[in-house]
């Protein structure tokens, strides 16, 4: 099997990740539940993961890192917690449904005003139009750091500066960039980074979280067990317990810690460059094939290592299925939970075939995919 669906989830992980989960599941007590050795083993590993996430994003304090099930949960915590009736929020058409649906729920249920800044047919954002979208009551700009469809990275530092000029908070969806692209909360002016663990952080599914800049406060999305302060009627006010009701996924977070250690050892820039180089090799091999249209990849901020394409008017699902059946190549067709991005690129009905690369892939695998695409194109064009 050749796995090119790393933008959905990385399948090939550093071996230490599975080892860490196996050790944890046989040795951990409940995270934050007691002072015995088994609980402290879990506590220590979760703290190490917290500290590693803080270091990765230059978040000032590990305590400002709260874990969650995934980035969808993180974005729901942020969007639900920060917006209320009378507020205005800004996002872009590059957003994933994990941003769009919580925003539209706030719009429909509470009357929150939402502006979606358009993306053009090349996948680019007009920064002037983004700046014009802010209003006096704009509370929040929540944007994707990189499109999960094209892999194109957006200039979030510039977007943060514009948001702050208008007195709005700035939040990024780092699903595609965490572990792949450098993120410095303090240098870039990001108020909240939301992340998932199972993509380029190489952790297990069921791990994710958010990082808060100092002074940013969110109400708890859930309330319940906290392990301490049990006689208080409500969730503790202090982080991270404030946002971590219930026993955390200690086993998964132990695996995430191993993934983070791997990233620290190899360097975000190096891993991202390796992913991008494989994508570039693939694009070079297929872009001139008859009928092939490459989506995006025209931005100036780089790409996370994705090539999304179509062939003529062929259904993207049919191409992806041929790749799977004929060459055991795993790709993702369809809409990628990015409906407005597909509208922008004119690919709503056709979808697109997304090849998303990992540095664990090889050039030989890429060349096999190029050859497969040549054969598929030769059959239909």
């Amino acid at each position, binding site marked *: 099997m050749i796995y090119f669906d790393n933008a959905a989830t990385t399948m090939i992980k550093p071996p230490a990740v599975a080892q860490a989960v196996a050790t944890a599941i046989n040795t951990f007590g409940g995270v*934050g539940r*007691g*002072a015995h050795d088994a609980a*402290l083993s879990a*506590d*220590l590993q*979760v*703290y*190490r993961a*917290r500290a590693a996430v803080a270091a990765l994003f230059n978040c000032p304090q*590990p*305590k400002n890192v709260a874990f969650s099930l995934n980035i969808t949960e993180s974005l729901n915590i942020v969007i639900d917690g920060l917006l209320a009736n009378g507020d205005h929020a800004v996002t872009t058409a590059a957003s994933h449904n994990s941003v769009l649906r919580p925003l539209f729920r706030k719009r429909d249920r509470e009357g929150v005003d939402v502006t979606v800044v358009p993306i053009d047919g090349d996948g680019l954002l007009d920064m002037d139009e983004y700046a014009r979208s802010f209003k006096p009551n704009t509370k929040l700009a929540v944007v994707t750091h990189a499109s999960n469809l094209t892999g194109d990275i957006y200039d979030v530092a510039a977007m943060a500066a514009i948001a702050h000029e208008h007195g709005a908070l700035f939040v990024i969806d780092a699903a595609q960039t965490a572990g792949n692209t450098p993120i410095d909360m303090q240098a870039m002016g990001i108020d909240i980074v939301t992340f998932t663990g199972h993509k380029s952080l190489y952790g297990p599914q069921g791990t994710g979280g958010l990082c808060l800049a100092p002074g940013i406060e969110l109400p708890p999305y859930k309330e319940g067990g906290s*392990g*301490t*302060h*049990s*006689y208080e009627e409500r969730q*503790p006010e*202090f*982080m*991270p*317990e404030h946002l971590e009701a219930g026993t955390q996924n200690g086993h998964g977070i132990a695996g995430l810690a191993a993934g983070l250690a791997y990233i620290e050892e190899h360097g975000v820039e190096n891993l991202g460059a390796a992913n991008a180089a494989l994508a570039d090799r693939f694009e070079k091999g297929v872009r001139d094939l008859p009928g092939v249209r490459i989506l995006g990849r025209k931005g100036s901020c780089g790409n996370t290592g994705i090539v999304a394409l179509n062939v003529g008017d062929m259904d993207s699902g049919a191409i992806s299925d041929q790749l799977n059946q004929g060459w055991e190549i795993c790709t993702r067709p369809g809409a990628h939970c990015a409906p407005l991005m597909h509208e922008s690129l004119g690919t709503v009905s056709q979808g697109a075939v997304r090849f998303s690369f990992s540095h664990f892939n090889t050039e030989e695998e890429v060349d096999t995919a190029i050859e497969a695409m040549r054969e598929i194109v030769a059959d239909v064009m």
Partner: protein
Amino acid sequence: MREKTPKVVVTFETTTDAIVFESESKADPEALPGRIIPVPSEISAGCGLSWCADEQYRETLLESIESKGLAFEGVYGVCMY
């Protein structure tokens, strides 16, 4: 019959602060002698974590707290088993 002995108990505002103590102690046990225990009920009801060491280590602990910039809530003298 066991006798109670004087201990120094450090309490924390957050569980994470307690785990930072544990992490620092694992890295440098001499500078941070002691271990995590449940908060004694005579200090606070509930189920939080605290740091406990023999009273003789009080000064060592306080110096480490200062030099390492560790967050804590209070320091108590308690006679415990």
